[in-house]
């Protein structure tokens, strides 16, 4: 291993005897003493953060286990011990990692980079959890039932996982049906009005007039007109997704460099070729912006529709939990929602990055 490679890795102190041995040439010594001096401080700092993170999680665990919960008039918060043990486990793992790194264990470089990268966030999350635990379970400054300690979330997930899983499945299914329709119809409309003057004449005014109307405003009337609350929700989610997709597909098609068409036409391209091989690929970056916005709008409509009429799904779960004043369960559902929606958006970006590899300076999600 060369001296410079060793010195880049956190925990590999370049003054250690091992490194000295590898730098047997003069040039190597020069490299190890001059080139790496600035990074030594940095790697040592990241290294120290690992220990701080372990310490912070250890404190959280100890505090959870040793400081008795404040009685709140009903039975004690469940899973307090489990939460404390979990915090201590994280602390132990992290401490072990930090020790291994200082002892110059051979880790893959990417793993070390991740270790360095997450350490500050790990410290911050321990601080947040500690404050949360103190203000809820330990002192009760934040009153129950509106506030609950982190350990109670474990309680909510353990006791309601079947219902939560069912709600998640229904939400995702409904969302996909609506988004698929909305994206397909919106894209088709956008491309047609971008391409054809006649389609533009007829559809553009409708889009301009109806597009800005929030789909949620149509909720009561849709539940009345559609045979089921499910189909009404699919329609509204499709509407919410379709509008931005249509507008941005249209603007994408309209802003295609006209010279592309000249080039393709001189080479014998048919109209279909111009649409599918020139206009649409050129418009795709904008189409993805539309999909991104459409996704956001669809989440809003999904949750509102489930709160108002659909008898399943995470939106329904929120109102159901509220009706029992079961706020812990609501937090549990909200956290699940965050995870699902965030993953869906990430998925969209993965698809986009694959389809638009040709773009320069693409934004990373």
């Amino acid at each position: 291993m060369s001296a410079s490679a060793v010195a880049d890795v956190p925990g590999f102190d370049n003054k250690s005897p091992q490194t000295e041995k590898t730098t047997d040439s003069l040039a190597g010594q020069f490299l190890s003493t001059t080139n790496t001096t600035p990074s030594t401080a940095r790697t040592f700092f990241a290294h120290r953060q690992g220990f701080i993170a372990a310490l912070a999680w250890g404190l959280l665990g100890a505090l959870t286990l040793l400081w008795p919960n404040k009685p709140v008039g009903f039975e004690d918060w469940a899973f307090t011990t489990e939460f404390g043990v979990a915090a201590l486990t994280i602390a132990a793992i992290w401490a072990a990692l930090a020790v291994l790194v200082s002892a110059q264990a051979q880790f893959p470089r990417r793993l070390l980079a991740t270790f360095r990268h997450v350490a500050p966030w790990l410290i911050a999350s321990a601080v947040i959890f500690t404050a949360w635990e103190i203000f809820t379970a330990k002192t009760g400054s934040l009153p129950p039932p509106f506030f609950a300690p982190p350990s109670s979330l474990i309680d909510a997930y353990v006791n309601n996982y079947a219902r939560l899983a069912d709600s998640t499945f229904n939400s995702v299914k409904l969302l996909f049906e609506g988004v698929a329709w909305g994206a397909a119809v919106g894209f088709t409309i956008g491309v047609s009005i971008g391409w054809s003057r006649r389609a533009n004449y007829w559809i553009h005014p409708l889009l301009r007039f109806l597009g800005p109307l929030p789909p949620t405003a149509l909720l009561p009337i849709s539940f009345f007109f559609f045979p089921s609350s499910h189909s009404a929700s699919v329609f509204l989610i499709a509407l919410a997704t379709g509008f931005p997709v249509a507008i941005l597909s249209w603007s994408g098609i309209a802003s295609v460099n006209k010279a592309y068409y000249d080039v393709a036409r001189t080479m014998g391209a048919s109209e279909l070729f111009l649409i599918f091989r020139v206009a649409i690929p050129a418009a795709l970056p904008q189409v993805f912006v539309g999909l991104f916005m459409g996704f956001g709008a669809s989440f809003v409509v999904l949750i509102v529709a489930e709160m108002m009429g659909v008898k399943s799904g995470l939106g329904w779960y929120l109102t159901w939990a509220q009706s029992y004043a079961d706020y812990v369960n609501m937090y549990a559902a909200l956290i699940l929602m965050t995870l699902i929606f965030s993953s869906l958006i990430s998925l969209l970006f993965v698809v986009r990055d694959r389809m638009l590899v040709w773009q320069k300076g693409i934004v990373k999600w």
Partner: protein
Amino acid sequence: MVVALLKKQQDENTAVASRIRVEQVSHGFDTLTGRLDVLEDIDLDIAPGEFVALLGPSGCGKSTLLRLVAGLEPASAGCITQDDKPITRPDPSRIVVFQDPTLFPWRTVWDNIALGLEAQGILKQEKARVDAALQKVGLEGFEKSYPHQLSGGMAQRVALARALVNNPKVLILDEPLGKLDSLTRLELQSELVSLWLKNGFSVLLVTHDVEEALFMAQRVIIFTPRPAKIAAELAVDLPYPRHRGDPKLAGLRHEVLDRLGLGTSW
């Protein structure tokens, strides 16, 4: 001598050249402020395999004439024919290379070059032509690159390969080297000439670079400012490959600049 060389090269290649006749062509646009006449009574005859340069002040309408010859727009008046058949629409036998490479950014170099064959629905059988075109412009190894990874000169080479893959009978060049740095420009001028000599197609080149026109073309047509008319015609009867330092070229240059009203600066 040049003609003899061309004849020989043409026999070796399957590519055939077309005759382009521009007869009494006038063209104009309707703008908000009224009619804008761009071309006036243009008569031009390009023999099969001939290299003709159109030279004139910028904005005079040279590029418009190229669009008409390509068939991208119909002329307001007059008639343009290719081998005695009127030109009514674009056709792969007349390919334009624009000032901007206008490569499709979502396609790799190989796919960009394959564009014409794909549009004509013959890509599957003719894949070898794409590789051959790539080789002609010296871009082997860049098949999988995307346009944003290429330099200006490389991008214009790809545009050239994308044109050549169609085996055009007429190559229409609209200031194809206008945006390149001067060294790449000189390099590509020589390459264009040798590609022409090898393939034997007719070339119609628009440029406002006097040296470029004289170095490359057999005949230089000088246009007046808008509405463009043909002001003069100059035969460049020099053998290829030409040398930029040739005193005859310097003499012709003086003549051309004189015609363009810039004689005193030489």
